[in-house]
């Protein structure tokens, strides 16, 4: 029953907030962006608001957190009170502070991983589409073979081989995810490579790097940006799941996935605290999905709902 009340209250609060946020954006942004901001659906405004909040918290974590990230400041599993707003964890560290630092660690690592996957995947994909021939065939068949294995299973296999640390985590997930990015970048770029202006640039004698950077990338960017949001969600969920399994971000770094795992016993006693980091993960993914939905809708030019 309490959950239903909470859900209704959450929706009731977020609707006027998103509305006000949209109105403020439409007022404050320069004219050309203000129109897009003013006409976006409430869900997208909500998404932007949440993402903005997360970025703010991640940037200013040391100023916002009442206690240090790793310090033991109380006894174990203290309930919520005025000094420790969300109580303490199983070692006596402040939950709220760790939740705030978690925004920096979890989201930061997921973002770095996605960016790396995109850099490698899209460059290779565009390169393959541009060169064609045996290089394209070889790379694509290799990627096909890697994609025949479910990504979480493949990541677990690679983590066994290279051991678990933040650096290997980023590299492994980025490598596995780059295969997915490669496919999309390649198929988008294939549509661009056959254009006359690419042919013209080629005949001018421009190099491969110039062709990728100046001719293809600007024309393939829109679908790749929407894909970035979706892939970020996948990477973020994968990293959280791995951390939850104890194989991702390692203690004592504050991280939402491992916070859930460490304090999960509290749930069976009816305490909701361990659900908060998991909820923080879910909220960000929902928010990014909302924004991506809006962007896809705008990019596809679909004004009529099917």
């Amino acid at each position, binding site marked *: 029953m309490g959950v239903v009340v909470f859900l209704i209250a959450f929706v009731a609060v977020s609707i006027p907030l998103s509305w006000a946020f949209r109105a403020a954006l439409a007022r404050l942004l320069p004219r050309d962006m203000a129109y897009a901001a003013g006409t976006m659906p409430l869900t997208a405004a909500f998404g932007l608001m949440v993402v903005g909040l997360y970025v703010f918290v991640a940037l200013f974590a040391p100023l916002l957190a009442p206690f240090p990230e790793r310090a033991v400041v109380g006894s174990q599993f203290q309930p919520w009170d005025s000094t420790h707003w969300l109580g303490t964890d199983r070692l006596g560290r402040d939950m709220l502070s760790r939740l705030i630092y978690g925004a920096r660690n979890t989201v930061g690592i997921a973002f770095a991983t996605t960016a790396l996957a995109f850099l490698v995947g899209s460059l290779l994909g565009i390169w393959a589409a541009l060169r064609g021939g045996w290089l394209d065939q070889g790379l694509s068949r290799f990627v096909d*073979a890697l994609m025949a*294995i*479910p*990504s979480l*299973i493949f990541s677990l296999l690679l983590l066994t081989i290279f051991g678990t640390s933040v650096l290997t985590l980023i590299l492994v997930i980025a490598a596995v995810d780059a295969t997915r990015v490669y496919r999309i970048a390649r198929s988008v770029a294939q549509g661009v490579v056959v254009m006359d202006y690419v042919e013209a640039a080629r005949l001018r004698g421009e190099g491969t790097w110039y062709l990728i950077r100046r001719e293809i990338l600007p024309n393939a960017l829109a679908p790749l940006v929407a894909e970035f949001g979706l892939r970020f969600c996948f990477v973020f969920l994968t990293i959280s799941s791995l951390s*939850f*399994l104890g194989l991702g971000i390692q203690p004592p770094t504050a991280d939402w996935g491992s916070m*859930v795992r460490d304090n999960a016993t509290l749930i069976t006693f009816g305490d909701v605290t361990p659900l908060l980091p998991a909820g923080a*993960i879910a909220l960000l993914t929902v928010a990014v999905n909302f924004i991506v939905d809006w962007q896809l809708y705008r990019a596809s030019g679909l004004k009529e*709902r099917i």
Partner: protein
Amino acid sequence: MHLVLMMILQRLALGVLTLFVVSLVIFGATELLPGDLASTLLGQSATPETVAALRAQLGLDQPAPVRYWAWLTGVLQGDFGVSLATRRPIADMLATRLGNTVFLALYAAAIAVPLSLILGVLAALWRNSLFDRVANAGALSAISFPEFFLAYILIFLLAQSGYFPSMTRISPNMSLGDKLYVTFLPALTLTLVVTAHMMRMTRAAIINLMAQPYIEMARLKGLSPLRIVLRHALPNALAPIINVIAINLAYLITGVVVVEVVFVYPGLGQLMVDSVSKRDIAVVQAIALIFASAYVLLNLTADVLSTLTNPRLMRRK
């Protein structure tokens, strides 16, 4: 009939080839190990003699193609080698766990597939109604939630008040009813994860078809909306729906790993996570091969089935 048989044989051959490549990738990944498996296992303090002895015992002194061949022929005969951590035969460790995992996945699929088909058809039927909007928003949120979040919400709601056990202890001599009861929460978690996606895709597939001329004809004939959806739209939407079901059942494979850990369910996923933290590469390899094979086989089945429902696909290149 001849054509159908050819098609199935062709897909099977392709599937076997894919499985071969997958086994190559899984085996080849171990070759990336910096240094040597034997010295990694024994640590820094091992003498060269003990490392050499372990290398000989594990067969590491032989070239990679020979080891791959020995591993592959062993696997095909049900011999996965021995665990590096416990020195027990891997096949024994897998036997009961594989059954448990398959049971859980089938249980979840048995609830999720009919449920998502019904919800998807209803959402398509009452398009843009309140039901459609709520179902869509719910589905989008469920897709965005990490599995362990859903699992703990269910534990919080249903296990903490004592309706269902939050830890799954199953023994071989349990009755089916008891087994279904204790595995209800993990199965429900998996159901929620995959239902959302399947429902959305079913809805989209049917709505896509609703713009077709023959649907308009059926509507002009004065058929009821339910009959139009069930008799005219659904059979033509089967191919995409079968594909979506296969993708999501394949998704169950990865979902099962996290859910098994949350509910302490004695399945393959839990064993895999344990083995990853112990860096027991032999066990991880074996389980990865099983999961990947299931994934490949599911996709293969979906491909064959959707071709059978739509004869036009038979002639594609």
